[in-house]
């Protein structure tokens, strides 16, 4: 499970073994409080789930499950519907993550700038957070429906009047992507805003004295100091987006014609609707391995830049 994870950058500093040992002891002491609930409520169910991938477990009553080695994975290779949903999942999570980062960075910079009504605008920027996902989905369905405000606006500008955004084959995926970005904006914005606040003022002041303009200071100072934070938030955003399905499920149920069938939604249907727990776990494991490999590359490259 851990061998695909990030290799820590090699520290060049020389260490004596005693320091290393003290450090390790300190590290363990710092980490211990976090581990107990993690072991019971997270690691344990997680391993259980991973083990399931190698069995023919179902959700039927009183049925023994058998170890089937890699049968589930062999079957998965030929499951075209799963791979199609995998492709949709990639389109969805990459677009949502990139748009979240770009839009979130823009908003964080604006909120960090010296503008009026700072407190008010910051709270407004968090509005998507104040609405539970249950309500978010229903709200956006109202906005997107044929008799909704979006069509009223589009037709006011001379566009078509009755697009059913979530049911149209071409607009459904872009429409849910917009909602995905909307939902994730507060998270990304606040994280980046906190990061910007953390950049020591002196660096900016010094650069200003040196005559660097705003754009230069953004690229030369803000971005490098933010890199660990940007790496952390984009990696998480990507994982979450790849993993999400509740919102899309409520809005489109994967339709129209499977255009928004995200891989987690597919896995969910396999586990809870067909009750093929083992097969669904294999899907889950494939997704985990894929994301971990992707993340290792990404984080490794980020940490390497960090070293330069």
């Amino acid at each position, binding site marked *: *499970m851990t061998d695909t*994870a990030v290799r*820590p*950058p090699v520290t060049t500093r020389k260490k004596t073994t005693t320091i290393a040992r003290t450090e390790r002891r300190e590290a363990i002491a*710092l980490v211990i*409080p*976090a581990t107990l*609930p993690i072991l019971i409520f997270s*690691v*344990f*169910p*997680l391993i*259980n*789930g991973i083990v399931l991938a190698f069995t023919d477990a179902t959700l039927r009553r009183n049925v023994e499950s058998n170890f089937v080695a890699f049968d589930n994975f062999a079957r998965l290779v030929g499951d075209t519907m799963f791979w199609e949903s995998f492709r949709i999942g990639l389109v969805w999570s990459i677009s949502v993550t990139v748009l979240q980062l770009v839009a979130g960075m*823009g*908003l964080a910079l*604006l909120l960090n*700038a010296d*503008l009026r009504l700072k407190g008010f*605008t910051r709270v*407004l920027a*968090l509005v998507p*957070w*104040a*609405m*539970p996902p*249950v*309500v*978010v989905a*229903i709200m956006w369905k109202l906005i997107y429906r044929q008799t909704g*405000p979006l*069509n*009223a606006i589009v037709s006011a500008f001379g566009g078509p009047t009755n697009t059913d955004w979530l049911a149209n084959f071409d607009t459904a995926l872009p429409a849910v992507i917009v909602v995905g970005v*909307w939902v994730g904006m507060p998270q990304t914005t*606040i*994280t980046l805003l*906190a*990061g910007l*606040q*953390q950049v*020591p003022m*002196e660096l900016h002041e010094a650069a200003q004295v040196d005559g660097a303009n*705003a754009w230069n200071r953004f690229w030369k100072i803000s971005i490098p100091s933010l*890199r*660990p*934070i940007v790496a*952390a938030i984009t990696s*998480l955003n990507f*994982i979450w987006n790849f993993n999400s399905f*509740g919102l899309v499920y409520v809005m489109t149920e994967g339709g129209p014609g499977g255009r928004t069938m995200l891989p987690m939604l597919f896995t*969910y249907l396999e586990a*809870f609707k067909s009750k093929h*727990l083992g097969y*669904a776990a294999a899907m*889950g*494991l494939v*997704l*985990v391995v894929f994301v*971990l490999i992707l*993340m290792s590359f990404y984080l490794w490259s980020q940490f390497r830049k960090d070293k330069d």
Partner: protein
Amino acid sequence: MGRFTKPGQYLLLLAYLIFLGFPLLWLISAAFKSSAELNSLRVNLIPTDWHLANFPEALAKQGLVRSGLNSTIVAVTTTILVIVVSIPAAYALARFKGKLRTLGVGWILTSQVFPVILIIIPLFIILKNLNLVDSLLGLILVYTTYTMPFALWMLQGYVAAIPKDLEEAGAMDGASRFKVLREIVFPLLMPGIVATAMFAFVSSWNEFFFALVLIQTPDNYTLPITLKMFVGGEGKVALGPLAAGAVMAAIPSLVFFGFMQRKLTGGLLAGAVKG
């Protein structure tokens, strides 16, 4: 950002706020519309006649206040637990390299990727054996565990963003490690801690799936569960009362955000640290 034209910035900010705020505005509008108006073809932000009955209906029918209280208890406790436990661990994760870090990162990422639906049944059984099904304490423990990977991951990012030289300078001055942490690292970390705390709060405030499965009696319902009760079979949604309930449910979080965002300022402290 010095030269960048101010009006342009305001305009851009306005565009952002419309995008982010419009759905709430539409929700508020729906909360004041009658069922007949909501089911007509008209598209209007201002209701034709202000229908106030949705609010008492939302309050009366579904025990909204009770579940609001439950959500507050769960979200606040989870936030405190997560932050207290995560800060030391995140520091260790960022500063000490080694097997432990690899293991930690591996777990954090795996636990965030693995489908919740495959975890829920063993988790349910564990909680049942611990007598924690249908209890707020059980929910708090689960939320703490599942918010922690994120909190750890973000906080270690913030720690990593603090130049190591600052700590080393402090250590050179003869300060103890603890003193260095308290006087140099902690203040610099404050905006990051606040941002993480806000997330921990929001994610447990809004969480639906665990609560759906783990909570059984209405006395223990959290807000998302109560709001979902407005959605009936065959997609029959009591839209007006749902919107009214959602608007009322949004107010505590908005107040909380208003309070927290003031603490999101780190510029003051940066001046105190001379590298």
